[in-house]
């Protein structure tokens, strides 16, 4: 009789334990999100109180920005307005240095058909060019060579080169406009500070626009077990 009672007692304990386990698991399952939220308050309330204390000054500034939405600008780096080119040798007077495009091109007729530097017999001969089937004057302005040429023939300054690129590379331009193309620095939150973005030509050489190859310089060495075994062998 006592044996029976003992078995009964043990069975009841087992049932109670398993019911608690199951019910706890059940509680957790449907309210997985809520339970996390629900259990967080004791964890988060002190956080918030501290954060409000700590961030009162920040609150003030952010309030100011919401009431008066002054956002810092996105600064896109710009190339020089008038680019110069290094002279390859020295002139008869023995001078070397940099000259503007118009220094030479204003006195020379433009050959609209030139597509590669191989066709040239003087100047620009070392220039690498690998940008589709474009001719030089597809992008450079034949008359007024200190500016670039849009597809409709109108001139655009070198500092606005992105307008030129965007004519063909509109998907990249769209991505760029939404921060999904091109590197950036500064602030993600422009209520707190400005953001600086690269220009197309910061990363892409317009004549060879493919992004250059790089060499990996930094590697983690956390697989120290392998290293250890090597050192044992020595």
């Amino acid at each position, binding site marked *: 009789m*006592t*044996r029976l009672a*003992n*078995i009964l*007692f*043990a*069975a009841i*304990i*087992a049932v109670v*334990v398993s019911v608690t386990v199951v019910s*706890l698991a059940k509680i*957790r399952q449907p309210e997985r999100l809520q339970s996390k939220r629900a259990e967080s308050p004791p964890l988060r309330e002190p956080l918030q109180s501290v954060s409000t204390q700590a961030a009162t000054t920040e609150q003030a500034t952010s309030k100011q920005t919401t009431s008066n939405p002054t956002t810092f600008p996105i600064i896109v780096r710009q190339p020089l307005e008038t680019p110069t080119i290094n002279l390859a040798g020295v002139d008869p007077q023995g001078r070397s240095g940099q000259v503007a495009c118009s220094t030479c091109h204003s006195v020379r007729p433009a050959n609209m058909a030139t597509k590669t530097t191989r066709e040239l017999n003087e100047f620009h001969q070392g220039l690498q060019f690998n940008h589709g089937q474009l001719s030089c004057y597809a992008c450079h302005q034949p008359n007024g060579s200190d500016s670039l040429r849009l597809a409709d023939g109108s001139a655009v300054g070198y500092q606005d080169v992105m307008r030129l690129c965007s004519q063909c590379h509109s998907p990249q331009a769209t991505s760029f406009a939404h921060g999904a193309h091109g590197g950036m620095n500064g602030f993600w939150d422009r209520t707190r500070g400005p953001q600086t973005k690269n220009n197309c030509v910061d990363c892409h050489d317009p004549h060879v626009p493919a992004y250059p190859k790089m060499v990996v310089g930094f590697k983690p060495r*956390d*697989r*120290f*077990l*392998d290293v*250890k075994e090597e050192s044992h062998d020595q």
Partner: protein
Amino acid sequence: MSSISASDPDQESHFISYPTFLGRALWSATEGSLAFYAWMTLLTAISLVGANAWAHQVAEGMIQTNMTDQVSWGLYISNFTFCVGLAAGGVMMVIPAYLYDDHQMHKVVIIGEAIAIAAIVMCTLSVVVDIGRPDRFWHMIPGIGKFNWPISMLTWDIIVLNGYLLINLHIVGYLLYMRYLGRTPNPVWYVPFVFLSIFWAISIHTVTAFLYCGLGGRPFWNTALLAPRFLASAFVSGPAFILLVMRILRVTGCYAADPGPARTLIQIIRVAMVVNLLMLVSEIFTLFYTGGAHASSAHYLFFGSHGHDGLVPWMWSSIALNLIGTALFFLPSAMDRSLVRVVACVCVLVGIWIEKGMGLIVPGFIPSTLHEIVEYSPSLIEWKVVAGIWAFGFLLLTIMLKLIANVFNAQPVPERTTVATGGGRG
């Protein structure tokens, strides 16, 4: 317990007599032959070596181990997993003893419980040496720390392991104490706990399996079969360990039981080992027939991959040992007190130790979640610490067994006067 003392007015308060019993028990348990003292000294020495290695590990950082960010658990957690199985298996004998009313088993049960206590202590130590900040252990204490219950499976494990330790301490303590007082134990005070410990034994191993199999990022562990496999192997390693301990006790002449219980244990091992192997086969089939990400760890484990094969010898020797052990257990001579039985027990113990440790915990991390293959083999410090933990476990077990033997030998079991001492083969 107050009801007992109330019914027995000439008795001293248990608050005084129980500590007295413990003190006298400890005193008598440390009495013995020269060989006994040599054995105890050896165990103490190994424990101290382990303690020293651990102290160095704490002082100089876990860099002293060979674990990495890729293989972040190693020998310690492997050993923990095995010891949980041992602890659970130790109590499995309770089932035939009480569920089927097998009176012969009662004498074995208390040994199983003692093994369980030692194994749980080893589990706890294995976890303590694995954590990077043992000085912050108090963060886990409910109330003063922050105990992430019930979300974290590790908190469940802490609860069930400590609960299991307390239950077994109570059962062993109560049974011995009653014998010491010369009274028949009152079933009300231990039988419910014995049954509780059966469920609890299953729970400790299930929860430990849930530690691993709940992790979606580790496909090798993420199998529903893990908990049943753990239980099946516990039903093997526990009884096998008990058989070995019983053999040692009989040979040293400390304590002897009938051959009957041993046969029951062999029957349990036979069934459990077959089930264990069946589940292993089922696991292997699922992994390799399906292929894909789930199989990459298994591929590394069984055949090596991308030129790395550090675990391959471990795993195949485990499978070989398990198969040999199983075959030996099925020999008729395993039913006798033969050498075959001892060899079989050693085979399956070592086989399961590898299977649960180097064959389960470590390959869960190889390849890593980013499929890096970083191999792991324990450092000397890790081996020392684990040896220390085992030595300490054996130290505890020896003292407890000595105590059990003393109490039982000093006072013959009332209902059973034909206690075999040496016993014939049968």
